């Protein structure tokens, strides 16, 4: 069972475009899952320690996006609390509140995306 796998042609490695890589899939129905597994194991990129370090760094840097999630949750939770207060005097406060909530959402999302951008920077530019 293992031997035919070992002698699979290595054409998947030379493909530089990821889009055509998947086009081979439907034609090799019988052992597609094994071929896909094979693609994971024999990818030329996964050999280099440098690339492995980049992957680990990018994965670790993506954890920072959790802060953005916490921030957005806080902002909209406070918006709901602010909406629930009896605002009998000034209905236009709801409009202002919502506008500030959208501002807070965008700023918090920006922080999360800065973190994600550092992850991409590590992955591709360094």
């Amino acid at each position, binding site marked *: 069972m293992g031997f035919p796998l070992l002698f699979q042609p290595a054409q998947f490695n030379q493909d530089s475009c990821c*889009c055509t890589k998947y086009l081979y899939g439907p034609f090799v129905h019988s052992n597609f899952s094994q071929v896909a597994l094979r693609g994971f194991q024999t990818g030329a990129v996964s050999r280099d320690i440098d690339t492995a370090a980049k992957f680990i760094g990018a994965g670790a840097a993506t954890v920072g996006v959790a802060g953005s999630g916490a921030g957005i949750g806080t902002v909209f939770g406070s918006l709901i609390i602010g909406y629930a207060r009896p605002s009998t005097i000034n209905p236009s406060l709801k409009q202002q509140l919502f506008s500030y909530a959208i501002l807070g959402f965008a700023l918090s999302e920006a922080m999360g*995306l*800065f973190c994600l951008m550092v992850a991409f920077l590590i992955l*591709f530019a360094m």
Partner: protein
Amino acid sequence: MMLNFFDQFMSPVLLGIPLIALALLLPWILFPNPAARWINNRLITLQGWSISQATHQLFTPLNQGGHKWATLLISLMIFLISLNLLGLLPYTFTPTTQLSLNMAFAVPLWLATVIVGLRNQPTIALGHLLPEGTPLPLIPVLIIIETISLFIRPLALGVRLTANLTAGHLLIQLIATAVFVLLPLMPTVAILTASVLFLLTLLEVAVAMIQAYVFILLLSLYLQENV
């Protein structure tokens, strides 16, 4: 490899002509001018109403000096909203994913607000560097921190817009590729992923409009401090 997913952000060039110039001109033809009539047609009336609503909401907190900026900022907002929304169409290039464009919007406008503040009311503008009620020993540190915060503003403005749009487009392309690959193998999982893709597209439409609005809102807030 993921590097190919970034090809969508390359500035398109056809026969040596940078097509980004064409992409930047396109929103101009989408917003017709009002005709010289007392009452215009429905489209122009709606357009005028929505623009005046946005202007009213953004510029009410500002004083007279700030109202001079209304034309510039509102037209910039319409430009950014249309660029972002047009970029969500398939195979359409989004110019606002280019950091150079967003920094070209952010840096001159931020610098203009700072210069206006320093020129007309230098004491008040510099006074913003120190919040009220700081304890005496903290003053030097806080001034340094506030100056750094001031200089980070244009960077944050530009990068916020770029990163939001780039990340959104990347996510859409990734999930769409996942759906496309999963479809012959596990159709049910592909349908679930397709529903995720649909929700993501709705989120991206919202983000496209929100990010343009926040860009202008923050500029108006910086103006409010300085004018």
